[in-house]
C-alpha cells in the first residue's frame, strides 16, 4: 500500500507541474489570500497583545491587592501595610511588584481645578507600569521621599501650569479629613495613553504617607500591583495570593477591566472567523479550477479506472493533487505573510486616531505580532480547506465511467 501511495504521490506532483501555468495562478491566489490574512491577523494579534499590555501596565498589573472596602470608599482608611509579603511559587515568576497609595484628589492651579488620581509611588518599582514609558520634561521623581509632583502634559495644559510652578492638591487624609497641600511640579510627562496625562498625578510614596498621616499603620499603602512574566500564570498566582492574604481583596486585570478582557477574548475567535471567511471565498475559485482540471483529464482518469485502478485510489490521487496545490500555496502564503510582518515590524502609527484607538484600550503604535501557534493554525486550517475543496473534484472524478471516458 505504501508503494502505491508513493506512486500516487509522484503522479500527483507531476500533474501539478504538468499544469504549471494554471496552477501558478492558483498558487498565487492561495498565497496572496494566506499571506494577506496572516498579515491582517498578525495586526489583530498585535492589537490583542497591545491591549493586554496596556491593561496590565496601566497601574493594575496582572493582579492588584487592595483592602476590603477600598473599591467602595477609596481612602486611606482602607489601607494595608506596605510590608505585606508576596511569595509565589518559583514556577510563577514575578517581573515586579509596585506598592502605591492611589486616592482620588482635586488639583488646582491659579486658573483651573480638576479631579485626578493622586498616586504615591516608589519610582524604582514602577518599571512594571506605564510610568516607564513616560517622556518627562523637567525632572523625574528622585525617590519615594520626593515630595514634588509629576503631572501629565494634557493636565498641565488644562491647568495652564508648567514645570517649577506650584499647584494645590486636596486629598482625604488618614484621619478622614481633607488635607490641602501645595506641591511643586518637578516634571510634566508625555504618555502614550492620553488618559493618563489627564488623570494621574504622581508623588513620592513616603512623602505622601507623611502628608496624609498614618492613623493605624506605620507604612500604609492602598494597592499592591503584581506583574507576572506570563498572563497564563495569572489564575494560579491569584489563587495563591488569595490563600496567602485572605484579609485582602485580590483582583486581576480582567476583573478590573472587563471590557478589555472581553475584547481580548473575542480576538482569537475573530482571527479564526476572518481566516475562514477569506479561505471560503478562495475555496469557490479553488473548487472551480480543480473541477475543470478533473474534467480536462476525464479520459486519462477513465483510463486509470479501465486499467483496474479502484475508486479509493482514484479518490486518493485527486485529493493528493488538491491538497498538494493547497500546501504549496499555503507555504508560499505563510512565507509572504512572514515577510510582510517583518516589513511592518516597526508598527503602524495610529497617532492620528489617538482618541479612537485609546477607547479600544490600544496604544497609538500598532505592531504586528506573529506566533508559531498562529502559523501552525493557519497552515492546519488551510490544509483542511484544501481537503474540503478536494471533495468536489474527487466526487466528479469518481463519477467518471471508464467506458464513457474511453469513448470520448
Amino acid at each position, binding site marked *: *500500500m505504501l*508503494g*502505491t501511495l508513493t*506512486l500516487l504521490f509522484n*503522479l500527483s506532483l*507531476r*500533474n501539478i*507541474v*504538468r499544469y504549471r501555468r494554471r496552477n501558478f495562478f492558483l498558487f498565487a491566489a492561495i498565497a496572496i489570500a494566506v499571506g494577506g490574512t496572516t498579515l491582517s491577523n498578525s495586526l489583530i494579534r498585535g492589537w490583542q497583545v497591545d491591549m493586554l499590555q496596556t491593561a496590565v501596565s496601566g497601574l493594575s498589573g496582572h493582579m492588584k491587592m487592595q483592602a476590603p472596602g477600598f473599591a467602595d470608599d477609596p481612602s486611606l482608611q482602607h489601607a494595608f501595610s506596605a510590608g505585606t509579603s508576596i511569595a509565589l511559587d518559583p514556577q510563577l515568576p514575578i517581573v515586579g511588584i509596585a506598592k502605591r497609595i492611589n486616592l482620588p484628589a482635586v488639583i488646582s492651579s491659579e486658573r483651573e481645578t480638576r479631579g485626578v488620581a493622586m498616586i504615591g509611588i516608589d519610582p524604582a518599582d514602577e518599571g512594571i507600569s506605564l510610568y516607564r514609558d513616560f517622556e518627562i520634561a523637567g525632572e523625574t521623581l528622585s525617590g519615594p521621599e520626593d515630595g514634588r509632583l509629576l503631572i501629565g502634559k494634557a493636565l498641565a495644559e488644562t491647568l495652564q501650569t508648567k514645570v517649577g510652578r506650584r499647584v494645590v492638591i486636596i486629598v482625604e487624609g488618614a484621619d478622614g479629613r481633607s488635607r490641602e497641600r501645595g506641591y511643586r511640579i518637578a516634571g510634566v510627562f508625555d504618555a502614550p495613553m492620553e488618559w493618563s496625562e489627564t488623570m494621574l498625578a504622581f508623588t513620592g510614596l513616603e512623602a505622601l504617607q507623611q502628608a496624609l498621616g498614618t492613623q493605624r499603620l506605620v507604612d500604609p499603602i492602598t494597592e499592591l500591583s503584581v506583574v507576572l512574566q506570563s498572563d497564563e500564570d495569572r489564575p494560579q498566582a491569584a489563587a495563591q495570593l488569595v490563600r496567602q492574604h485572605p484579609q485582602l481583596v485580590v483582583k486581576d486585570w480582567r476583573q478590573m477591566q472587563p471590557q478589555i478582557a472581553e475584547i481580548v477574548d473575542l480576538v482569537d475567535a475573530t482571527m479564526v472567523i476572518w481566516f475562514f471567511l477569506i479561505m471560503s471565498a478562495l475555496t469557490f475559485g479553488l473548487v472551480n479550477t480543480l473541477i475543470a482540471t478533473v474534467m480536462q483529464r476525464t*479520459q*486519462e482518469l477513465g*483510463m*486509470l*479506472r*479501465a*486499467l*483496474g*485502478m*479502484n*475508486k479509493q*485510489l482514484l479518490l486518493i490521487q485527486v485529493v493528493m493533487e488538491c491538497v498538494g496545490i493547497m500546501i504549496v500555496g499555503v507555504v508560499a502564503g505563510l512565507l509572504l505573510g512572514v515577510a510582510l510582518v517583518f516589513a511592518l515590524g516597526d508598527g503602524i502609527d495610529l497617532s492620528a486616531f489617538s482618541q479612537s484607538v485609546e477607547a479600544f484600550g490600544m496604544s497609538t503604535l500598532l505592531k504586528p505580532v506573529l506566533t508559531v501557534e498562529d502559523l501552525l493554525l493557519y497552515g492546519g486550517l488551510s490544509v483542511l480547506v484544501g481537503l474540503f475543496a478536494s471533495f468536489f473534484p474527487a466526487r466528479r472524478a469518481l463519477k467518471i465511467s*471508464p*467506458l464513457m471516458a*474511453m469513448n470520448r
Partner: protein
Amino acid sequence: MTDSQTQSAPVVLCQNVQRIYQQESVPVYALRGASLAIEAGEFVSLAGPSGSGKSTLLNVIGGLDGFDAGEVTVGGTNLGALNAAELAEMRLNKVGFVFQAYNLIPVLSARENVEFILQLQGVSSQERQERANGALQSLGLGELGDRRPGELSGGQQQRVAIARAIVTEPVLLLADEPTANLDSKTTSELLEVLQQLNQQQGMTIVTATHDPIVMSYTSRQVAMMDGEIHQDSAMAT
C-alpha cells in the same frame, strides 16, 4: 469454477449476450444475443461496420461495460456476478487493454507507465523494474524507457501500451482499433508484434477493427452486424 477447471475451458465465453442502451427512452440494441467462445491462444478480430456491436462486445468482455442479458465468462470468472470493484480487480489482473488513442499517462515515462500497472497489483519494486524492462525490450523499446509519451512516435506509444498490457501476464489481451491512428508501415509492424505475442507466447488476443489488414493478421475473424455474430471463420471451417 476453479482455475484448474478453467484450463481446458474457453478463455472467453459469451452466451446470448444482450446490451441495450436507452436513448431518450428508446431502447437501442447494441448486442442482440451474441454468443462467442474464444479458446486460449487464439488471435481473434471482431470486425464490422460502425454500430455493428464489435466495440460493445469487446467492452463487455473486458468488464468495461455491463450487459442486460446472457452470460459472460472471462478466465473462468462470471462477469455478471461481479460488482464494480470486483470488475476493476478483474480488469487489473486478468485483462490487458490496448486502446486506439494509446492512453498512456503523459507525466510518466514509458517505463513508469509499464510499471504503474504492476504497482497497482502490489508487485515489489525490484520485480516491477525487471518485468517492465523485459516487456519494453521484448517490444524493441529498451532504449526508450526513460522517454515520456510526448517524446515518442505514435507507433512507439502503442508499443508501450502493449508492453503495459502484457506486463501483467493477463489471460486476455483486448485491443480496440489499435492501429486506427497509425500509418500503414507502423500498422504492419505493430500487428507483427501482436502476432508474435500470440504465436510465440500463446497470448489470447481479441481486437475490434474494421481494417482488413488487421483481420489478415488474426487467426480467426468474427464479423458482426446489428449486434449479432454474423460470420465466424472458426465456424466456417
